[in-house]
């Protein structure tokens, strides 16, 4: 197992190298000029050129890529063109809100979606099953920002139960922290809940039709035991796989959610950096997300061994 983990971790290096090359190349080829954005509308073309030179943006691709790669290897993600702050500092400022939102959404989604899916499978063909699946369709269909606006309007503006926007760091209190994240987590979690609920239902239906379930019933096992001990555990592997794949959905959805609820997270940082052509920040954040996703996949693979003892590395 340890050797497997080490092999997987080492395998991230070529993956990250490929990601680094692609993201750098795409940004280099993309239109837009950060020097023009920096200089502003009142600047002359000569000013813009001077700024471009001062930022090193006039250097050849190979020189810029080599310099950036060398810094990455030494753990330096570079300095933001606009803020003059190290990219690592900017990421550190923004990572807590995004991780908080993602983790809370994950917990919310799993704790709602898995029981929903189990319930739908157990009550297959009934109005409960149809209601759960109808909700899932809504979750897929309604965009995150629409859900966000509706939640903010009802629960913040009309009922004044929760704030419209913002983020309170956990160190400033658990309930203020939670208060700011409830609506965003629900908005972001909609698609995720829909996805997990449907997969859970589908795999549960398949498992519930197996012979060993009939044997368990024949032996007198209760319904709860059948569903959550015998069936769910066997259905867990595909569910966990989808949860892992869905992390990518969360990352993408966080961008929209953070904008709607004015949460100062990595999603907004990325969008702002893209609009300004703040190349070091874009590159740094994309690398970070790629690395996180690789680790998440590793974690998912390791989780399989918990649910299915036949899986060993």
């Amino acid at each position, binding site marked *: 197992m340890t050797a497997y983990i080490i092999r997987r971790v080492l395998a991230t290096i070529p993956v990250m190298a490929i990601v680094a090359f692609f993201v750098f190349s795409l940004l280099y080829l993309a239109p837009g000029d950060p020097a023009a954005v920096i200089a502003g509308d009142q600047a002359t073309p000569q000013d813009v050129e001077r700024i471009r030179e001062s930022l090193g943006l006039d250097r050849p691709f190979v020189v810029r890529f080599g310099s950036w790669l060398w810094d990455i290897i030494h753990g330096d993600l570079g300095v933001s063109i606009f803020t003059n702050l190290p990219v690592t500092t900017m990421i550190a400022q923004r990572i807590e809100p995004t991780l908080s939102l993602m983790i809370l959404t994950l917990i919310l989604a799993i704790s709602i979606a898995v029981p929903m899916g189990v319930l739908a499978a157990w009550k297959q063909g009934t109005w409960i099953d149809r209601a759960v699946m109808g909700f899932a369709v809504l979750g897929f269909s309604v965009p995150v920002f629409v859900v966000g606006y509706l939640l903010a309007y009802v629960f913040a503006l009309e009922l004044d139960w929760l704030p419209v926007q913002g983020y*309170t760091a956990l160190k*400033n*209190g658990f*309930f203020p922290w939670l208060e700011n994240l409830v609506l965003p987590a629900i908005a972001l979690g909609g698609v995720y809940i829909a996805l997990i609920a449907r997969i859970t239902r589908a795999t549960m239906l398949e498992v519930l039709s197996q012979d060993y379930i009939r044997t368990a019933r024949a032996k007198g096992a209760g319904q709860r035991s059948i569903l959550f001990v015998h069936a769910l555990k066997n259905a867990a592997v595909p569910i966990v796989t989808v949860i892992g794949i869905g992390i990518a959905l969360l990352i993408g959805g966080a961008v929209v959610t953070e904008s709607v609820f004015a949460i*100062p997270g990595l999603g907004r940082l990325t969008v702002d950096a893209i609009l300004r052509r703040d190349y070091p920040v874009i590159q740094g954040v994309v690398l970070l997300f790629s690395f996180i996703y690789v680790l998440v996949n590793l974690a998912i693979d390791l989780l399989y061994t918990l649910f299915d003892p036949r899986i060993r590395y």
Partner: protein
Amino acid sequence: MNRRTLLQAGAGFGASLLLPPLAAPALSQGAAARTLRFVPQANLANFDPIWGTQYVVRNAAILVWDTLYGFDDTLTPRRQMVESEETSSDGLTWTFRLRPGLKWHDGTPVRAQDCVASLARWSSRDSMGLMLKAIQKELVAVDDRTFRWVLSKPYPKMLMALGKNSTPMAFMMPERIARTDPFQQINEYVGSGPMRFVRNEWVPGAKAVFERFADYQPRQEPGNWLAGGKRMLVDRIEWTIMPDPATASAALQNGEVDWWENPITDLVPQLRRNRNVRVDIADPLGNIGAFRMNYLTAPFNNLKARQAVMAALNQEDYMRALVGDDNNLWKKLGGFFTPGTPLYTEQGGDVLRRGPQMDLAKRLLAESGYKGEPVPCIVAQDQPITKAQGDVTADLLKRIGFNVDFVATDWGTVGQRRAMKNPVGQGGWSMFHTWHAGADTINPAVYIAIRGNGERAWFGWPDVPPVESAIAEWFDAPNLEAEKTAIGKLNAAAVENVLYVPTGFFLTYQAWRANVSGIVKGPFPVPWGVSKA
């Protein structure tokens, strides 16, 4: 007790049974009343007002850095850091004496040497500063409170240059900071203004915090834009950047923020219905919508093609697209300068106000020899002002008979592409849209977009010698009447040659909570004199 408090109490009670007491923020009512929560127009990504000339940087910078002079609401430069000034009889030597007791936020005194270094940095980037630098013989500190600027020819508009609010403003910084290369960012944000920048709370793109500087010495006169006493009535200002206008609107209505710089017009009716929110015009100097044609490439290298577009123009279409049905927010413009300001003129501008003359436009286009070449019109979709204008223009050009190549892109790409002088078909362009703040169109000195000096002009590179002659005449004008004469000629020449096309004059709103008082109209948010109940 509102429902949120009740829910919190209930949740807290329930949690307290299960969990040990957890820390919660406790902002007392008194502290809340001394904190002003502001939503700015854009992202404050950097904080060097000389290096980055965006308006949002300027608006934050006026809190932290002071200027030698400042415009009041009559656009007259008034003394701010300066106690007195003297000009030699030949107009070549300016001597400035600073007010006593001025301090930097680090406690050190403001010295003349700091001002010398600051002016050197500023004059390397600003258009008026560059003019001064070109005629500068000496800029030197005489003693700790006095410095002298010696020129090789008179510059009557010196005080305007030092006090103007168009970017980059002549902010004063400590010498060690001002010595930073003007094309590199500063790393310290120490000023002598009424607020200190709280750097350790700055999250670029999300939040910026300013705290009152206890040792600030405001002038005795009442505050008036950048002139007079800048008396802060709050201890802390928190800028919260909110990219989504619907969120900002909801936050203002919910009392989570106090002042919103730039609500979009669509949301104003909803804000007006909330009895806890006030709405009014933000900046009486407003904005001028614009689109610029490329003088270097066909078809707009031909005067008749440009005149065809201007003949078909209907400013009302553009303004309705920008501000909707609110007639308080726009008016037609027969010229290129800011309405309501001393130099505004409509000389030669009848064609702009007359309304569309489609037959004339089509005839002019035919006379230009236009053969149906594509006309790339680059339109930023992420800026509501340019997007709205671009949609109107695309329709206008098609109706005249142009073959429009509508390039929908983002502002960053527009910034890059408009700098390219390539022919159309090789990455070039024919037209782009923009707008100019009224504070930047009050006179030719601050109005980079009005120049007609060809390759050295702003994007589009208009080559209009009569405009340049009129600008030179304005700079040398000995009095206001002479200035107006020069501007009249400039306006007529700019219209006749279609230097660019002004699409109309429009205003924007600002909104604030009813418990906030002292908010005034201005070309930037004026925070002094603002208080909360």
